[in-house]
């Protein structure tokens, strides 16, 4: 599957995440010079497209994830996108936001921030936001989010050079974003505190313990299944229902 994306040595991987229909495929095409089909309807990209481009004599493998509204894995697309971000360890994740509906799009960005810190926010469709008379204060958004924000209008080719530069900087480590973490209400935070010490045992250094703990609180079984696959656990020994009864009875 996509987890085994053919990554060569000395090649950076870049994941493109975002809501459906925000222009991920357009950005993908603009960056790679490929002509993946784009269309103005949500759900167009059902597969992960991959392409390569070069910048500063470095090769970048770019993976166009399916459009999702969240990473809470209610749909196949969400599961694909989430598993890729969690387990494939891309060097940079670009979250593409639709500038005309910032608030809804930020939900996804915040969830991505919980998984990885190597994030860039690409504020796309700026031309349409202007047409709709929306004014977004990009520098203060950058401060709020703690990650680089690049304003683009990919269909017009605006801002793409800047995006390439930022991708290079984050991939090479010369720029280290510190993405804002979601502040949960006290109930959730307390429960997290309880679980974190336990989770740290299995987090394996690559995955954020906080993220795993949150999914445990969700009771998100599809994630745990992916996690157990990742940790190479025999499927047969992984029966949630049994534990639920046995553990809580004690």
């Amino acid at each position, binding site marked *: 599957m996509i987890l085994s994306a053919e990554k060569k040595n000395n090649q950076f991987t870049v994941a493109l995440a975002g809501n459906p229909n925000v222009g991920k495929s357009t950005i993908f095409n603009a960056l790679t010079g490929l002509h993946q089909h784009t269309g103005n309807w949500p759900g167009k990209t059902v597969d992960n497209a991959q392409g390569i481009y070069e910048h500063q004599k470095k090769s970048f493998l770019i993976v166009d994830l399916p459009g999702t509204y969240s990473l809470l894995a209610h749909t196949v697309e969400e599961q694909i996108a989430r598993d890729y971000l969690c387990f494939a360890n891309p060097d940079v994740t670009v979250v593409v936001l639709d500038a005309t509906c910032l608030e809804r799009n930020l939900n996804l960005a915040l969830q991505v921030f919980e998984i990885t810190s190597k994030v860039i926010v690409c504020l796309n469709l700026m031309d349409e936001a202007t047409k709709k008379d929306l004014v977004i204060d990009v520098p203060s958004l950058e401060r709020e989010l703690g990650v680089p924000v690049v304003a683009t209008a990919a*269909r017009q080719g605006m801002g793409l050079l800047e995006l390439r530069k930022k991708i290079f900087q984050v991939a090479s480590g010369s720029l280290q974003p510190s993405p804002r973490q979601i502040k949960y209400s006290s109930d959730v935070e307390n429960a997290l505190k309880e679980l974190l010490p336990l989770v740290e045992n299995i987090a394996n250094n690559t995955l954020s313990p906080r993220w795993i703990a949150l999914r445990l609180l969700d009771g998100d079984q599809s994630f745990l299944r992916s996690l157990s696959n990742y940790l190479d656990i025999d499927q047969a020994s992984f029966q949630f229902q049994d534990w639920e009864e046995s553990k809580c009875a004690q």
Partner: protein
Amino acid sequence: MCAMSPSRILSEVYGQAECVRNSNLKSFSDQIVADIYGNAEQITKHVLSKKESQRISFDLTIDNLVTSKWFGYPLMILLLVGVFWLTIEGANFPSELLATVLFAFQDQLTLWFQWAGAPNWVHGVLVLGVYRTLAWVVAVMLPPMAIFFPLFTLLEDSGYLPRIAFNLDHIFKRAKACGKQSLTMCMGFGCNAAGVTSCRIIDSPRERLIAILTNNFVPCNGRFPTLIAITSIFIGGAIASYSGLINALVISAIILLGVAVTLSVSWLLSVTILKGEPSSLVLELPSYRRPKFGAVIYRSMLDRTLFVLRRSIMIAAPAGAVIWILANVYIGDQNILSSVAHVLNPFGQLIGLDGFILMAFILGLPANEIVLPILIMSYLSTGSLQDYSSLEELRNVLVSNGWTWLTAINVMLFSLLHWPCATTLLTTYKETGSKKWAFLSFLIPTLIGFTACFILTQVVRFLGLV
């Protein structure tokens, strides 16, 4: 090795989490989602300001019209007829031109072969078989595709497609299916295999299966040329003035019939083997964007038109050779083609077709594009007519082989309602992961096609209309 296997640790942690979850009255997952939204709202408040807006009301005005109760449907039908009218009218002239040029070149090829002293059978297989079929496929298919695909891509790019899904949602609900199915049907216009793949956008597995199994009822571009050629010859051609418009109306009617069959079959599946209630649908209506014409032309030509054309050429070339061989190898005093057609004939006649037509559809399994070329080749190989370059001559070929208007309608019906092509079947198998569903996607349209043609033929014959 670790003393504790990771699964043990994970299971313990999971158990612990279960206890924590149960200790709270409220659902954690709801609270988590609410908190994420709260954070996003807070950030947005800080960075976003808005001037008095004109543009949103512009989108809204269009949407109110496009999705309104009274104008929504007429507008969709008008667009459908319009697209086909442009396609048929526009394709007419280039098709004839291509046919003239390509068949003139065939004569030249024949001269070259004679000059080189090539044996008869080599000339037969390569020129009369491979080249003639290729010329047919290109002349008949290329012009309509080169017009239809850019038009369709324009609609796709502008943002109109989700509005169609919005309009049709409640009808699909009534058929207990998903409104997004209309998007997958739109993709099916291009290619049913692509349509089946696009069914992944439907979340509920039940509704996805319904959409996959019924996608074939939308005629793909491989079948359009067949439909267009036959209406042009038998229906539009019969009424000289406005023939383009009438052809477009006939094609649109066939597509509406396909939609009606889709809905009925979806409903039927929903109350029998795929029982269930429709799930709710969240559909985003993206803002309208002015399509970039250069990109539209480029993409629809390269990605769609040439891609599809290449595929059909790769299938048509060997098929042409095989057909010629079948038509020229004799067992007794009949060639193989005629013998097979002879066997199929009684059955074909029962549903208002003939043995050759049925055989062409069967041989067209690899790709629907080659059905009509195969048919013409078979007729020509047995008859005396050798040259043809216009629709009028084509009409003569068909009529001299016993075609009536009923045959024409049956062929169009059967083209709409028969088994999917091999690529689509394979895609269905891949998408569903089950031979059973792939077989069902073969069986359902085939049964419906046979039944529809049978009933129509018997009724028309009983009433003595033919």
